[in-house]
């Protein structure tokens, strides 16, 4: 189904400012970087996690460790997704026990990805707590999950798609809302 761009939500500069603000909020809420680790959900959440860690380093002087989660093996919809996902590696090279974990993803929607990510993180150990940072919260939750840090709230219809495009994967930083043609 061809998709039409309905709205342009964020460009490079506003994304940078948003991530800087979230980095400040993470430092404020956790009083620095002690025991702090950042874990991103593949693929774009991982890129955002790395950017947040770098921004935190610029502000605070210490770069928190960054991990990458691939939640494919923890999905609850593996049997109903039409296209089989390719499994990639989870990379958490540090001990998660007693750590303050900030989980990062690009878009918060139904909350099912976050549920899978929480299950996977807990299989690595027992963190002090897990906080959630997302660039976009588009609503329509199907689970009781909320984010601690939100870049931008966008009211959407379930027929629309929110696409976060990043320099690392798409060659440019922007967020757009797409809708199906002819509706």
């Amino acid at each position, binding site marked *: 189904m061809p998709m039409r761009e309905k709205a342009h939500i964020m460009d490079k500069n506003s994304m940078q400012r948003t991530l800087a603000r979230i980095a400040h909020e993470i430092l404020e809420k956790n009083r620095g970087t002690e025991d702090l680790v950042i874990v991103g959900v*593949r*693929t774009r959440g991982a890129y955002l996690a790395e950017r947040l860690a770098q921004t935190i380093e610029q502000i605070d002087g210490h770069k928190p460790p960054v991990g990458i989660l*691939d939640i*494919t*093996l*923890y999905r609850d*919809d*593996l*049997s*109903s*997704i*039409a*296209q*089989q*996902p*390719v*499994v*990639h*590696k*989870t*990379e958490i090279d540090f001990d998660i026990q007693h750590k303050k974990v900030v989980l990062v993803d690009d878009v918060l929607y139904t909350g099912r*990805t976050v549920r899978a990510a929480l*299950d*996977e993180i807990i*299989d*690595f*150990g027992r963190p002090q707590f897990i906080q959630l940072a997302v660039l976009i919260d588009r609503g329509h939750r199907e689970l009781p999950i909320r984010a601690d840090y939100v870049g931008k709230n966008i009211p959407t219809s379930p027929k629309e*798609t929110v696409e976060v495009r990043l320099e690392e994967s798409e060659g440019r930083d922007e967020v757009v809302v797409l809708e199906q043609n002819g509706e």
Partner: protein
Amino acid sequence: MVNKNPAWTRKDLLGLQELTRDEIELLLKTAESFKEVISREVKKVPTLRGKTVVNLFYEPSTRTRVSFEVAAKRLSADVINIAIESSSVRKGETLIDTGKNIEALKVDIIVMRHNCSGAAVMLAKNLHASIINAGDGWHEHPTQALLDMFTLKEKLGVIEGLKVSIVGDIAHSRVARSNIWGLTKLGAHVTVCAPPMLIPTGIEKTGVSVTSSIDEALKDADAVNVLRMQFERDTENAFPKQLEYFKNFGITAERLKKAKKNILVMHPGPINRGVEVSSDVADGPNSVILEQVTNGIAVRMAALFLVSQANEHILKKNTGVKAKNEKVLVK
């Protein structure tokens, strides 16, 4: 998002001969993720929760069966082992009847070892359940070859261009056959080495080099895969005596001195120490034999995962039932 990687669409894993290079590479890539899983403190993922795997073994096997059992359990599947000594096969039940009865128990995946070449293919054609071939006669043992290739890739980075020698009873070895198919597809140069009696005629047509000189097989090789001499199968007196074999073909420290310093020594197990390989080599710095065992779990988890996913889609398509909320994966 366009998926650059090819999808796995087969409900079964029967052998490497029928697989494309892309499919083999996808399997090896998927196994990398599972290698990470089995190195965690909690070595278990919920991926195959609610699925049932039956290990149906018509030949004695401990390591392959246990490896599949561990792999299935790490994926949260339920596992049932059927040892043939205690089954109805003794009462004359045919293979297909046995398979259909297992399927009627709502089993999702059957892992089968059988002494007849082609048994897995036949079962796969007759059942809707996924079949994973855990060795059929002299034909194929795909997961063993995949774990050998996984180990090679992990240790040496690439498979393309590697020189791999396979030493031992090539004629009666399904491990050799699966390795030859897989390695040549991925661009490795394969040399087989054995007494002439144990080399099947026409093997050159698969693209391998043939030699009866162990020194030639070891020279320039990046890895040597040492097959187990299956003396229990020698009904034709085709094999030289054990000591004679060791003298002419055994991998010893002395012989390795003339090989590449970092040559990998591999063996599918169980080892006949002092027959195919000397103890100091089997336990020495070049040996990756125990790492192969660990990698076997990762590779078998990948195989179980991929066939299970593919079969769910096939079964859904065939029954015309579209999954509720079926959607294209965005991530």
